[in-house]
């Protein structure tokens, strides 16, 4: 009788254990929801009604640029968590981007850019600071190329730091004339120069 009891309890235990081990918990990461579509046009740049296509496109990229700038500011402040949050939002912004107003050739280019950019935004949302900066470098290239196609109604400065990535250099976009380097943080806050003005 005792033997039977032991055997039964062993079996029960085993089955329970089995149940536990087979329940691999899948982490479901809640995709960051984009913020309300309310946009701030601090520079007060007015849109001309004649350029309707342009303004539609700008509405499309506005949230992308906004969250990109949030990442940039977070990296300037070496704030990993804020960069990660903005990265998550940027990832959904890119996924929601509407390519339909563009020519098929532009759409192809945009698809290339966006596929790449989504991965960088995703990595920024889940990586440590230095990795975030690496992906921000490539993300900046993507966004600069994207804006070359879509345009924007925002006044932007394309800045360049020749020292990042073992002196290979890296660009970024900013809304201010003043240089605040996102790649080195406080170590080299003022390294860089304005390469180009957009608008």
């Amino acid at each position, binding site marked *: 009788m005792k033997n039977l009891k*032991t055997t039964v*309890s*062993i*079996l029960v*235990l*085993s*089955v329970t*254990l*089995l149940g536990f*081990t*087979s329940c*691999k918990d899948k982490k479901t990461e809640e995709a960051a929801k984009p913020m309300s579509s309310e946009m701030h046009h601090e520079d007060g740049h007015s849109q001309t009604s004649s350029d309707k296509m342009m303004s539609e496109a700008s509405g499309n990229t506005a949230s992308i640029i906004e969250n990109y700038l949030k990442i940039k500011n977070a990296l300037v402040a070496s704030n990993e968590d804020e960069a990660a949050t903005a990265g998550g939002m940027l990832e959904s912004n890119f996924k929601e981007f509407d390519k339909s107003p563009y020519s098929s050739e532009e759409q192809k280019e945009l698809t*290339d*850019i966006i*596929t*790449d950019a989504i*991965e*960088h935004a995703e990595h920024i949302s889940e990586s440590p600071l230095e*990795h975030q900066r*690496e992906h921000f470098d*490539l993300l900046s290239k*993507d966004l600069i190329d994207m804006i070359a196609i879509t345009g924007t109604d925002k006044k932007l400065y394309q800045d360049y730091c020749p020292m990042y990535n073992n002196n290979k250099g890296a660009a970024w976009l900013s809304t201010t004339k003043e240089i605040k380097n996102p790649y080195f943080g406080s170590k080299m806050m003022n390294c860089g120069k304005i390469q180009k003005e957009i608008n």
Partner: protein
Amino acid sequence: MKILKITALVLLVAFVGIQFIPTNRNQSDTVPKTDFMLVNNVPASVQNTLQESCYDCHSNNTAYPWYNKTQPAAWFLEDHIKEGKAELNFNEWSEYSDRRKNSKLRSIISQIEDEEMPLDSYTFIHRDAKLSEEEKAEILQFIKQLKNSL
């Protein structure tokens, strides 16, 4: 003493039991034309290293030693393969745009330089996958050269 025996028995039964839970094997007989090795002129020694240290999780074909067919190692591997392939699949190399290739090469370089890849947890059970200093230098040189030629 008896408790110990029972515990051992329970663990043994559970261990045997979990072997019957099916896993999806990442195996394929054919190497697609889009494979990294087929579209790039990769030196033989670099090919060997990539195959040994990267392809288990970054291609459609995993070489499963017996311990990787055994649970719970197989589960552990299954998850990593899924993630690894989503991140980078050498078998699909030529399908990537140049922009994406550039990003992937950049990540390969920094992951190897920072010794984040191959994963410690993977080289722990797969000792041969651990990169020696020479292998690292050799891969890095090739990958950097490839990146510059893009």
